């Protein structure tokens, strides 16, 4: 139990006038997002775009502070999309020009950087924001090389500055997908991987000298991998098969600097103990339970629960064709992980854990847990007021703030909803209803 009278005192002590961004939300069920269980009748205080305090607290607020009543509501940190292509594609198929996930025609691979491709005005970002998603891990798509390029962390705010951290990680395919790109097999993809990291290592420290003649990477691509070899940039690796998971973890013996996190990891439960002892972060598909490919034969919805029970650091992300627009379904998936707790023989997770897997855990997985994903003091003011349990199917946000700024919750879909609420013929055609 936290009674943060000290913070209250600190807040009162600041003589500066309150800005419009200072407010408190009181009376709701507060979820901190750190894995703890919901707190009844809690409070959240935001000042200058950051969390001052949240939870089971009572503080004296400076006169004039806006207090929002959240009685019978739930108050949570914004949802964080653990893996996505959010903002990169307006339409996925047959609408050339609207899809920036494709890089097949580029001479570059590791050097590719998603930053200029993220469109903060994409309808997918607005739709996600409307459903309480406030931050996202955005990865490029691998095309001609196993190295897809550098991903970014974004926010979904209604402004022109979506990038929270550019070049936050390098994304590489080392499972079936990578094998196909590298020449048809895992042996080929691991050779490609080793060669690339060696070329990067050889390049390190050289300013302008000649490279050897037999290099495969362009200078730009090799340079992009230097921070990966040095451990200054996270390497996000997509693998599914149990043995692939171990192969990647073991790469750290050969390249000790590597800072690795894994994506996908459908067969992680088979090697959960070794994953746990490796300390590597996992951003898993939540509900894969089909042997959809030969690298997922052991797929089960209990994967996340079993890894969690073994002590693996787990977050949830949206992979495959759910990545450009369906990040809003992460909370449904998290609810399903809770449901598994009632199924004999299955491994579920607690409600608090499930929520953390879509808020603080993905933030921690990419090294930004100190910035967002929970309502701890000092975190960014990403807050959502829900009309009910956010992991339930009938709940929706009533208000969303990002960095303490109240966000619009209308979008292309809500406007169509309003336009077609009635099909009665009116004085003017539907096109005049706005």
């Amino acid at each position, binding site marked *: 139990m936290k009674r943060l009278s000290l913070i209250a005192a600190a807040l009162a002590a600041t003589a500066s006038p309150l800005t419009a961004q200072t407010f408190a939300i009181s009376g709701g069920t507060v979820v901190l997002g750190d894995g703890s269980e919901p707190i009844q009748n809690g409070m959240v205080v935001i000042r200058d775009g950051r969390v001052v305090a949240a939870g089971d607290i009572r503080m004296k607020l400076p006169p004039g502070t806006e207090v929002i009543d959240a009685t019978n509501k739930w108050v949570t940190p914004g949802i964080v999309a653990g893996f996505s292509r959010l903002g990169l594609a*307006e*339409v*996925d*198929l*047959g*609408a050339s020009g609207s899809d920036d996930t494709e890089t097949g025609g580029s001479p570059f691979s590791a050097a590719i950087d998603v930053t200029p491709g993220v469109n903060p005005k994409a*309808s*997918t970002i607005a*739709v996600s924001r409307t459903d309480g998603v406030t931050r996202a891990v955005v990865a490029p798509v691998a095309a001609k090389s196993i190295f897809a390029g550098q991903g970014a962390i974004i926010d979904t705010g209604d402004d022109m500055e979506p990038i929270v951290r550019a070049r936050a990680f390098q994304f590489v395919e080392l499972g079936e997908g990578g094998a196909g790109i590298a020449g048809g097999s895992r042996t080929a993809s691991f050779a490609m991987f080793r060669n690339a990291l060696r070329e990067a290592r050889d390049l390190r420290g050289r300013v302008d000298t000649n490279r050897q003649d037999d290099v495969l990477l362009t200078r730009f691509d090799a340079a992009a991998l230097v921070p990966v070899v040095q451990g200054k940039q996270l390497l996000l690796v997509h693998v599914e098969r*149990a043995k692939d998971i171990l192969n990647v973890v073991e790469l750290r013996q050969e390249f000790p600097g590597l800072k690795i996190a894994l994506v996908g990891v459908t*067969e992680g439960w*088979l090697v959960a103990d070794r994953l746990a002892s490796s300390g590597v972060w996992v951003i898993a598909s939540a*509900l894969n*339970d*089909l*042997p*959809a*490919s*030969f690298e*997922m*034969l*052991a*797929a*089960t*919805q*209990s994967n996340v629960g079993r890894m969690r029970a073994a002590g693996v650091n787990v977050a949830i992300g949206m992979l495959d*064709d759910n990545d*450009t*627009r369906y990040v*809003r*379904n992460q909370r*449904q998936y998290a*609810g*399903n992980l*809770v*449901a*598994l707790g*009632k*199924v*004999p*023989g*299955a491994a579920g997770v607690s409600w608090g854990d499930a929520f953390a897997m879509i808020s603080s855990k993905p933030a921690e997985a990419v090294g930004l847990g100190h910035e967002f994903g929970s309502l701890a003091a000092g975190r960014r003011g990403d807050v959502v007021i829900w009309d009910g349990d956010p*992991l*339930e*199917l*009938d*709940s*929706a946000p009533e208000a969303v703030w990002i960095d303490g700024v109240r966000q619009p919750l209308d979008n*292309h*879909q*809500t406007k*169509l*909803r309003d336009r*077609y*609420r009635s*099909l009665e013929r009116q004085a003017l055609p539907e096109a005049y209803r706005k």
Partner: protein
Amino acid sequence: MRRTGVARFAAAICVVAGLGACAVQPKPKPGEIRINLNPYPSTYQPYGSVPTLIRGATILDGEGGRIDNGSVLLVDGKVSAVGGADLGAPEGATVIDAGGKYVTPGIIDVHSHLGDYPSPGVQSHSDGNEATSPARPEVWAEHSVWPQDPGFSRALANGGVTALQILPGSANLFGGRSVTLKNVPARTMQGMKFPGAPYGLKMACGENPKRVYGSKNQMPATRMGNIAYVRQTWAKAKEYDRKWTKYEKAGGDIPAQDLAMDTLRGVLHGEILIHNHCYRADEMAIMIDVAKEFGYKIASFQHGVEAYKIADLLKENGICGALWADWYGFKLESYDGINENLAYVHNAGACAIVHSDDANGIQRLNQEAAKAIAAGKRAGIIISEEVAWTWLSGNPAKSLGVFEQTGSLKAGKMADVVLWNGNPFSAYTRPDKVWIDGALLYDSHNPKLRPVSDFELGQPGEGDVK
């Protein structure tokens, strides 16, 4: 006037087997040769059942009815009675106390590709779409069904799905016949085939046919090409129908059999149901007129992402909308998808269905319905749980032509029943038990009652909860 099945079958053997086999049989009279309408008959047999009384549950009957603290009695594979707490059990019946739980008819998915695009999704398994001509009404989805697809068991255990329609893909304007299956593991497709279910024919409009064939520099390359090709094909079917009808009435030379035209003739005679993949409102309106022009009926629009814009037309023409709760934007023709689609279609008085088209989505159709109810509520449309369950069993059964047999909890119907371990409109709820024709085929408390396909035997995770 149609002849008996036996006589028809005997005649068909002659057509298929050729003159040699027919030589010993009497020569058919003029007009007597009939095309066998059921050459791959169902061999499905219900598994054993014990009289079972489920009591104390919230019952959603699939026709809009609800009984709190209700009872359902299953006897001899059928729903025997549905009632309140006072419903008694025959001697020796298994009695299940289901306080806090829900009982519903099994979910019926009208849009699945299980078996045709099975797991693992490799090229060797890619049997869902004969995309070699814009019109392939001669192909039958049942001839691609791999009964060992592990996806069937997930749909049963996680999704409470007791029957499903397998449709061909949507690359062609005419994709081929669908088949309706009971979700009961079997060695053969025929062993899963829903007895007596009519065939469907998959049609498609919009982006897919014009993209697939246009990219080969073939017709159709445009939406107007789509419609022209469809109309020309129906015109041929009318001619084929005239020839055979004349022969059947007056005899004469036996017309050549054309498998593609047989299917279309079945549609024109109302024996085969049209399930039309279509996204955009304007295109659905055109397809409705095409159907009127050639004298057939559309049973359902599949996907219908813009169905909400023409929900009045769906109602007026008695067409179901088989829809997702929230898919949008993956193609331009799905760009205007809204979460209220199901609620708006329902609210207009049209037939709404929640469908999956997805091996994962089929495991959560009840959850998709829950999202649609919630979206409707925010738009001011209140839809009760019992009414929403019509989207998951009653309306799907009607659109497939099997509502007489299943789709609701009414005495005499197949005992296709799910006991849920809570409210099925909650993310926290899963099937507890599933019966098909009264046979208990999934029990979450009994690992022996969890099917494992041949493919998964001996693999890591065999028999896991999945």
